[in-house]
């Protein structure tokens, strides 16, 4: 704040001095030049009247000659000083405006207001470096979940789009170079309520620098970084970055998952859904040979994953030498019929339009459909803005990289235990995933289910901990009981129970709970609040455990216990 005042003062120094000098000369002139009073007697203006006259002369010219009409000498001096004072005023105001308009001054001003708005945030927030499709999806998911975020990006144009987005909670944004540590500090990196830093710029060296700076300056926060090469991934992992996401392999992995084990894919999509997102429908991709259009970074990763799963694919690539495509690659874009026919489209079961150009991908889909209407069509969507035409193209599956990455980061941020669940889930087969999908669809309506973690400790579940200390042996299914009627069950089930280092996938309802357990629950949206009653309210817990409503007041409780004593 004080920086601005100093810069402003320094810049307006010379106009102020000019103004003071012009005023002093004008006043002195009026005092020295002889005048005449109304009776024709010689009279000299004093400093008081001279100051008064000069003050209004500069700004309003036209109050008249006071206190007596001027002599010609005075009029001449007034003429000269009018020009002097008006010009010096213009100069002063002009330089003041120039300072305010100055790019350096405005940057300073923006940084100051950014700093102020961050220091005013008093709930936990995430610092997000780089604003693009992924970040904007992530931010809207975070705001939906009530978590604040702060954005820094080097491109003012992208920040303008941030301002145009209508987030329910304000998201402060600054245009600055995130590779500078002081910019990250400005973004609240060292602030107590900063809980994480997400490096999502599209350049690996910058993400590396951001991750490194965050880990050094604030080791307690969670750092998530995006990398494009394996080299950078190893480098970033070396200093303890919590999560590293390679958008190409993550996205390719998810796409390959969709092709070889569709139920697992649907499970992943549902589990990492953002609040109020509609559930995607189960897909049934056929078995057989696929056609893969585009062999760039993304195509390579898809091909690798498909090959490891034993799915054969024919590659179509425009520049096979440049991308080091394997033998048997069909040369071409895939947008024209001849190339697709050369790739034997009539005998293929599906096609993946995976180039980095949305128009080409759509063109591939349209051409392929004409040649073989029974194809299973997967399209890669690069820009969210093209969503409507992809929808109109009626592909079997449309995937967007930014959305996959944003969902993954959102899940990692909000429920760390979910990452462990997904890691365990991937080791199971497609049929296992299908059984879980059935359980989820039984409880969820059309929206993505909510996934949350409950820790059996004094903070999260005081009533349960209290019961444990009295050897009451609470069981997992008691969490699902309705707080008003314990015979009713809430639409909830447990995905994972973590006890010390043991992980129980889909534990049974009769599993006894222990202090220190971490439970990953999956349920309908907003059902979480109902479930918290049994964790936090002793009376509700007592009712669910025993079936009797406990008296709440001290007097009534005494009365009831003495009555039950008499009975026994």
């Amino acid at each position, binding site marked *: 704040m004080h920086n601005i005042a100093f810069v402003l003062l*320094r810049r307006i*120094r010379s106009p102020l001095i000019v103004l003071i000098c012009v005023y002093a000369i004008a006043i*002195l002139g009026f*005092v020295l030049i002889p005048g005449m009073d109304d009776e024709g007697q010689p009279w000299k203006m*004093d*400093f008081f009247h001279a100051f008064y006259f000069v003050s209004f002369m500069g700004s309003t010219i036209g109050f008249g000659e006071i206190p007596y009409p001027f002599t010609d000498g005075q009029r001449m001096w007034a003429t000269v000083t009018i020009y002097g004072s008006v010009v010096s005023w213009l100069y002063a105001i002009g330089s003041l405006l120039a300072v305010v308009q100055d790019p350096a001054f405005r940057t300073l001003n923006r940084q100051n207001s950014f700093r102020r708005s961050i220091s005013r945030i008093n709930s936990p927030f995430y610092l997000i470096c780089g604003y693009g499709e992924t970040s904007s999806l992530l931010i809207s998911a975070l705001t939906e979940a009530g978590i604040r975020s702060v954005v820094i990006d080097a491109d003012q144009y992208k920040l303008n789009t941030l301002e145009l987005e209508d987030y329910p909670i304000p998201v402060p944004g600054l245009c600055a170079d995130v590779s500078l540590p002081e910019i990250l500090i400005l973004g609240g990196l060292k602030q107590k309520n900063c809980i994480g830093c997400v490096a999502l710029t599209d350049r690996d060296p910058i993400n590396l620098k951001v991750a490194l700076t965050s880990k050094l300056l604030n080791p307690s926060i969670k750092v998530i970084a995006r990398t494009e090469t394996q080299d950078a991934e190893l480098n970033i992992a070396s200093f303890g970055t919590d999560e590293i996401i390679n958008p190409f392999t993550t996205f390719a992995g998810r796409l390959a998952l969709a092709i070889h084990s569709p139920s697992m894919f649907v499970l992943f999509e549902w589990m990492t859904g953002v609040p109020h997102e509609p559930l995607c429908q189960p897909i049934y991709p056929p078995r057989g040979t696929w056609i893969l259009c585009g062999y760039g970074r993304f195509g390579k990763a898809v091909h690798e994953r498909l090959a490891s799963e034993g799915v054969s694919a024919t590659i179509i690539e425009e520049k096979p030498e440049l991308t080091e495509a394997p033998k048997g690659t069909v040369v071409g874009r895939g947008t024209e019929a001849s190339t697709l026919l050369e790739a034997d489209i009539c005998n293929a079961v599906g096609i993946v339009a995976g180039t980095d150009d949305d128009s080409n991908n759509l063109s591939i889909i349209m051409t392929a459909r004409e040649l073989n209407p029974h194809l299973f069509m997967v399209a890669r969507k690069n820009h969210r803005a093209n969503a409507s035409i992809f929808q109109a193209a009626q592909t079997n599956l449309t995937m967007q990289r930014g959305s996959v990455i944003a969902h993954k980061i959102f899940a990692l941020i909000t429920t760390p235990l979910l990452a462990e669940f997904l890691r365990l889930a991937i080791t199971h087969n497609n049929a296992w995933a299908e059984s879980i999908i059935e359980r989820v669809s039984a409880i969820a309506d059309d929206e993505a289910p909510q996934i949350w973690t409950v820790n059996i400790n004094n903070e999260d579940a005081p009533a349960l901990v209290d019961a444990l200390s009295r050897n009451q042996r609470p069981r997992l299914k008691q969490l699902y009981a309705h707080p008003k009627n314990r015979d009713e069950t809430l639409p909830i089930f447990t995905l994972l129970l973590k006890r010390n280092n043991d992980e129980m996938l889909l534990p049974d309802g009769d599993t006894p709970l222990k202090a220190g357990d971490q439970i990953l629950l999956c349920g309908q949206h907003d059902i979480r609040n109902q479930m918290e009653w049994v964790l936090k309210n002793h009376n509700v817990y007592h009712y669910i455990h025993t079936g009797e409503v406990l008296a709440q007041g001290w007097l009534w409780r005494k009365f009831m216990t003495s009555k039950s004593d008499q009975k026994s």
Partner: protein
Amino acid sequence: MNLEKVVFAFFILLALTLNFGFFLGDIDVPHHHSVYELFAAIVVSLIATVLKFGDRTHLGALLLATSLVADLQLIMAAVVWAFAEHITGSGMTPAVMAIIVSLSGGALLANITSVVLLVAETLTVRS
């Protein structure tokens, strides 16, 4: 030699000398104290203040503070003068003159501090 330093020191010293010139004389004798000298002291003091703007050092802040004190005292003296001459209609009495001169005496102290700080800075920073 640095022209900026010359101008800076010139105005600070001139503010002190003009102030001293006005202060000199019997405290309650109006014709010992020239109104022109007070006017010049105010103008030079204002210029000296503006010259000190924007210095972010601790000493710079101190110099600016002393200047602001001097301005305040001198402008108060001028206001008292204008009040006595034009508003109350009592004219210049020895009592009013004493008030004006003592106010300018306060400004003089502030100006002396300014010069002492300036000299101290010059001695510590080798040129």
